């Protein structure tokens, strides 16, 4: 059994037929060198076909599994051949002939290329993405151009918001498109906008800047625009803690608040601002926990327990008092109105001085010298009323200096002295009930000759009445929202000012401590406990307004009226 292969071979321009004989019962055809018939073309598989001669027949078998052997132009998987059949494998045409079953099988191999005139275009290029119109390079260039030109276009059309790193706050939004309102040219990103830009509209005083060893932070370091904050004044705790977490203060400045990180955790007990011990001495800061130094230095005596006694008697019978009977909120509803004698006390604490003159009182708040004048005129009127005939008979009398006093005058003097003794006596508890005499009077006693220059030298002098008004000036508080809370409706004021009904001493301080606030103001989950909930950075310690005053500068008036220039409250001179 053998196969004879006839091929046309071109060698050095010389073409000749080459015949090879292969022994064996099968002929392996393929691209691989192990094959008997080597068809060297890429479209031929490694082992492409097999020709066998079982029992006298000639069978060709496709080994690729894709029926890519063509017998007389028909694709086959396995076929019995007849002599003269033309097999096509790739570009090779194999003509198979034999004379008889014992003779060798002759295979003439011819290689043909595909016809060139009706050139069949390769299909592969149709499907390859890289042959398409949109290559990666073109797409990249187009997209980059789109981004760049789009941005330039948007900028040219005035849409500056596209380039802002974030939205501008609510109040500044009206001039957000005019960047030059705040920005003064190119600067590195780590440098905030200079303070002088802010100060063109705002006049915010600094925050204890003289006590800090480092320069005051720039406006923009806390009030950062373009961060999407709707309200620029809403500063978050980390900004405050950046300094107050480990505060460096100059000698003698701010000894109380050194390391505070949060209200809930390490805010110290509240401290009061108490007036100094003597006149002209500086304000003292005393913590509510320092019991030994803590004292209300008000000079008007008050016993809360007596006043809050449920069996209190008023002028018309039993009249139990509540906190609100005397303590009313002020106009803004934040703090309480200062106590006024005429409005809050006089109903019960009348200043009548003589039962012969019922309803006649001396005016509160006048110096003893003026009270004396009032008493004089009251008694003079009384004498006139009771000695009508005598006065009419006497007519107008002018007493010359040195002459003896008239009966009337002696009466008036006498009664005045009696009234004064009554008013100023500790036993009768009129003035002295609440006021402390600085210099005790010596009513009716002869006084030294020098003092006769001052005819009232015998009158006592009382301490200037001082009732503390703002206990915690470095924070702001509003009673209004707290009184509206349902959980406080029952106990009202006593929910926080618990010690009031038991307080007997004027020096008792009835301000609630931090624990009282922390029962609700706790983070997370409770009422607001951020620094700015109660504190302001810009010192407004003298302001009574809870929400702070608008710190925009008012327009400058003409130079003729310089005293009208306002730079906001609390400004340091």
């Amino acid at each position, binding site marked *: 059994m053998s196969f004879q292969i006839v091929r046309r071979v071109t060698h050095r321009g010389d073409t000749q037929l080459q015949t090879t004989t292969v022994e064996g019962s099968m002929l392996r055809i393929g691209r691989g060198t192990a094959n008997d018939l080597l068809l060297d073309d890429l479209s031929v598989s490694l082992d492409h076909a097999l020709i066998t001669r079982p029992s006298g027949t000639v069978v060709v078998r496709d080994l690729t599994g894709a029926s890519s052997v063509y017998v007389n132009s028909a694709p086959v998987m396995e076929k019995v051949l007849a002599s003269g059949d033309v097999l096509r494998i790739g570009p090779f045409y194999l003509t198979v002939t034999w004379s008889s079953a014992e003779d060798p099988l002759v295979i003439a191999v011819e290689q043909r290329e595909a016809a060139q005139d009706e050139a069949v275009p390769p299909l592969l290029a149709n499907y390859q993405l890289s042959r398409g119109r949109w290559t990666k390079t073109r797409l990249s260039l187009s997209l980059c151009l789109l981004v760049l030109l789009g941005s330039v276009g948007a900028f040219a059309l005035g849409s500056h918001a596209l380039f*802002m790193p974030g939205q501008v706050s609510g109040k500044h939004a009206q001039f957000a498109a005019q960047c030059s309102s705040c920005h003064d040219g190119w600067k590195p990103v780590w440098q905030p906008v200079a303070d002088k830009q802010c100060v063109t509209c705002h006049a915010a005083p600094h925050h204890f800047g003289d006590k800090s060893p480092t320069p005051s932070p720039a406006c923009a370091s806390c009030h950062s625009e373009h961060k999407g904050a709707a309200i620029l004044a809403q500063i978050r705790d980390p900004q405050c803690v950046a300094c107050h977490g480990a505060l460096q203060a100059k000698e003698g400045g701010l000894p109380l608040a050194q390391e505070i990180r949060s209200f809930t955790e390490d805010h110290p007990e509240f401290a009061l601002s108490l007036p100094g011990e003597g006149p002209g001495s500086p304000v003292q800061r005393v913590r509510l926990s320092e019991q030994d130094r803590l004292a209300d230095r008000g000079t008007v005596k008050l016993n809360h327990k007596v006043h809050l006694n449920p069996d209190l008697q008023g002028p018309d019978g039993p009249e139990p008092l509540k906190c609100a009977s005397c303590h009313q909120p002020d106009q803004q509803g934040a703090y309480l109105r200062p106590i006024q004698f005429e409005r809050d006390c006089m109903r019960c604490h009348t200043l009548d001085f003589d039962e012969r003159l019922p309803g006649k009182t001396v005016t509160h708040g006048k110096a003893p010298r003026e009270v004396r004048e009032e008493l004089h005129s009251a008694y003079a009127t009384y004498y006139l009323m009771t000695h009508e005939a005598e006065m009419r008979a006497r007519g107008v009398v002018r007493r010359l200096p040195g002459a003896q006093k008239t009966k009337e005058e002696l009466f008036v003097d006498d009664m005045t002295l009696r009234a004064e003794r009554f008013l100023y006596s500790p036993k009768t508890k009129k003035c002295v009930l609440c006021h402390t005499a600085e210099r005790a009077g010596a009513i009716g006693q002869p006084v030294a000759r020098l003092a006769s220059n001052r005819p009232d030298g015998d009158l006592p002098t009382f301490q200037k009445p001082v009732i503390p008004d703002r206990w915690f000036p470095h924070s702001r508080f509003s009673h209004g929202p707290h009184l509206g809370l349902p959980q406080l409706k029952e106990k009202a004021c006593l929910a926080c000012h618990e010690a009031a009904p038991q307080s007997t001493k004027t020096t008792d301080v009835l301000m609630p401590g931090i624990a009282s606030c922390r029962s609700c103001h706790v983070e997370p989950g409770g009422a607001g406990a951020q620094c700015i909930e109660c504190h302001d950075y810009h010192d407004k310690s003298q302001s009574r307004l809870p929400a702070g005053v608008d710190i925009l500068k008012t327009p400058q008036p003409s130079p003729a009226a310089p005293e009208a220039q306002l730079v906001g409250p609390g400004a340091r001179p």
Partner: protein
Amino acid sequence: MKASSFLSYRNGRWLWVGLICAAALIVSYVFYRRAIVPHGGTAMGLLYGIIGTLAIAILMVLGVRKRRYSSGIGTLQGWTSAHVYLGLLTLLIIPLHAGFSFGWDIHTLAFALLALVVFSGIAGVMLYRIVPARLTRFEAAMPAEKIDKEIQNVMADVRALAKHKSDRFVKIYLEEVDRMKRRRFEGWRLVLRSGQPDLLSRRVESMSRIVSSIPPHEYEDFQRLSQLLIKHSQLESSLMAQMTLRNAMEAWLYLHVPVSLAMVAAVFLHLIAVFYY
């Protein structure tokens, strides 16, 4: 060689590097956020920005490394592995840099483009895991380049058959050649349209339509012609199927690369804008 070896290159070395860096970044951000309000202009914010810019620069180098045959800076597989994990890391770095504040502006555009690049990259990685196995099944039978040649050979056979036959046969052959010449570029249609046209049934159908007009003495030749043309359609279908898979493996790059360059342009604009503001 494992199929996903570029993901697990050297025992997943770049995965571990990526995870450790991510952990370090997150921890640093937690402390940073507690201290001050985070945004791009703080010291830490700028640091994150610098890290992000460096990362993007390194990621772009893959485009260069991939086109060089050999290089002194490491294997292509190593670079690809690093590229994948570093790319995922940038999705973390940039929001940390911005302090998680976004808006309708060029800065967020740069990030949006970056996100698009990373997601297309993730899609690419997934394609690289799924498609090659499917493609091998086809390529074992006959790869795409060979099919092209084979189709040419089939057409040569058709030509040889039709050469000495009636006009009808020649017309069929010329029409087929014409159809092939008139083909338009279909590379994208393969990827974007689901389901390919059933060329085989169409061919069978068209042959059965023509057969009615063939005279009886040419039936046998016509049968041979039909078989060849059916084979042609089979080959074409196979080619289309293979190219669909191959194109799927390449198509995502047509998003990934152009958008990454557009992103670089946007980052450039972002830098200009923040240095003014």
